[in-house]
């Protein structure tokens, strides 16, 4: 009994809505058909809300369809603006359960409702809901990240500045980088070239950028020692930049006469075509020192094992977690992750760059403290619930949406 009265109530409401909404469809037919037979499903639980974190102009509608009843052929999304004029903004098939109105004006309150069409007539109508769209200046879920990133950037800039002012900064030894001189020196003694591989990604990859900066320092050393430097690249832009950087290195060492542009060549963008070409260079030129610094994928071990087999000293470095193990196994020295980014500062010994390393350390210290505090709070929180919310807060701080 109760169910029946609910159905009738719903029906009445929907009819009222329908009558208000649209006069083009004869309401009589709805009454007769719907009352006697199974009703056409209507959209229930209609929700309308501004889409958060956008430039505005969008309202998201979502609903569910009644499960009992005849499925409608299509759904009409209706919108009424404050002036009172109704508009059918779109017609969807009966399967949709959400829609985004992207023609809303910011700051205007709209009323939305949904008509269920069957056989060309509106047979049922949902409740009405209201929403205002608005534009946001910030992604709300990214404020935590913005704060942390700004803090870390500020600290890095601070240490760069204090480095510029000549403050002495201690940097621990990085084994792979201490070996750069030896490797280049050995190549000179043996009268063999140095091979430098800047990874296989393009110049927009930050690891490639880091590698190119290191290439500049290595070029200066090879120029000083007088051994040829071969740089095969897998990207055209990297080739262009490498040519500039190496030329500059030779210039700084006062050996611009020894610079040979032909030694910096493009092979192919193809990952394994590049690996094949570099392998060929390795076995034919027999370099005494090989640098593998930058962004590497599967070709890492193809290059490192071939380099090993020609007896070269190999210094590798990458931030690709999946490739580090292969470099560790096949190379003499490996710069792990962050050490790659530290290399240019370490090799140049420029105070401002060393300062940025100190800034990075501050960033890591911050995260260490955050993790330790969070873990302690979460662990105590298992027994004493106030601490749980502390852990939740910390977790939320590092959540990015």
């Amino acid at each position, binding site marked *: 009994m109760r169910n029946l009265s609910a159905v009738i109530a719903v029906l009445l409401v929907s009819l009222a809505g329908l009558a208000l909404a649209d006069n083009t469809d004869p309401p009589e037919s709805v009454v007769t058909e719907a009352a006697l037979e199974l009703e056409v499903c209507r959209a229930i639980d209609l929700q309308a809300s501004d889409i958060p974190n956008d430039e505005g102009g969008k309202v998201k509608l979502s609903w569910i369809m009644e499960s009992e009843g005849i499925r409608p052929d299509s759904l009409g999304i209706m919108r009424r603006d404050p002036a009172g004029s109704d508009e059918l903004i779109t017609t969807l098939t009966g399967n949709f359960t959400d829609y985004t109105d992207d023609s809303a004006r910011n700051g205007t309150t709209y009323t939305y409702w949904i008509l269920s069409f069957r056989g060309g007539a509106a047979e049922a109508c949902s409740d009405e809901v209201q929403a205002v769209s608005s534009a946001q200046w910030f992604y709300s879920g990214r404020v935590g990240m913005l704060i942390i990133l700004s803090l870390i950037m500020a600290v890095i800039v601070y240490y760069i500045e204090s480095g510029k002012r000549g403050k002495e900064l201690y940097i621990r030894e990085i084994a792979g980088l201490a070996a750069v001189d030896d490797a280049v020196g050995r190549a000179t003694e043996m009268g063999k070239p140095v091979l430098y591989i800047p990874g296989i990604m393009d110049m927009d990859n930050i690891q490639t950028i880091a590698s190119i900066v290191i290439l500049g320092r290595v070029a200066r050393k090879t120029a000083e020692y007088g051994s040829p430097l071969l740089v095969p690249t897998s990207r055209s832009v990297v080739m262009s930049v490498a040519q500039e950087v190496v030329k500059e290195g030779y210039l700084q060492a006062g050996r611009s006469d020894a610079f040979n542009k032909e030694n910096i060549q493009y092979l192919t963008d193809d990952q394994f075509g590049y690996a094949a070409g570099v392998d060929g260079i390795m076995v034919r030129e027999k370099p005494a020192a090989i640098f593998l610094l930058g962004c590497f994928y599967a070709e890492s071990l193809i290059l490192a094992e071939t380099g090993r087999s020609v007896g070269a000293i190999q210094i590798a470095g990458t931030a690709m977690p999946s490739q580090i193990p292969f470099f560790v196994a096949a190379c003499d020295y490996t710069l792990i992750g962050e050490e790659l980014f530290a290399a240019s500062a370490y090799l140049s010994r420029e105070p401002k760059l060393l300062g940025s390393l100190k800034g990075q350390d501050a960033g890591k210290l911050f995260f260490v403290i955050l993790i330790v505090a969070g873990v302690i709070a979460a662990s105590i929180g298992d027994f004493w619930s106030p601490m749980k919310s502390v*852990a939740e807060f910390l977790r939320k701080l590092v959540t990015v949406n």
Partner: protein
Amino acid sequence: MNWEILGIWLGAMLTLCLYSFLYRDNPFYKFAEHLFVGMSAGYWVIYTIENVLKPNWWQQMFPEDGGFNWVWIIPGIFALFMLARIIPKIAGLSRMALGMIIGAGAGVNMVGFFQTNAMAQVKGTIISISSGGAWDIFSSIVLVVGVVSGLVYFFFSKAHTGIVGRTANVGITILMISFGASFGYTIMARISLLIGRCQFLMFDWIPTIPRLLGIGG
């Protein structure tokens, strides 16, 4: 001429040429290597034209339904700057294009890495080390200690002595276990690739030999 068999033979011959490198450098490898470099370079030029320059630039600038989107002149100009390197006199213009690529790359990488590599990983490490059974607690402690000591290993401005040194030692130990596990896990993938090539040679190529010789079907 049967194109399918020709294709299989080309693939098989080049495969064998490249495998000969495992013995040592030889003319067959040199041939295949030079061919591979040339053909793949040609492939990527065409690929770039067809899949990047045409759809993402040309068709954006001149949409199919007519019209002209002037903003797409901007990347075109920068692309010309990049190509200006060919002419030594105006080669300096390429620095504008480089500035753009490196600036955009640095910006995208900075937020991307920070979000996915730093924030998400820190969040994943803020866990309770007092819940679950003894084994769970042990695992959680290993995880947290591993991450923290690993980070300490990367400290550049502190000498690895005293407590920092001991923590960094724990860190590099965890890193080594991690690298070992990662290496061991990967071997399977590499063998799979070899299986794939062997299947090609054994089940696609070898059966064509009798057919070519006129024996059997």
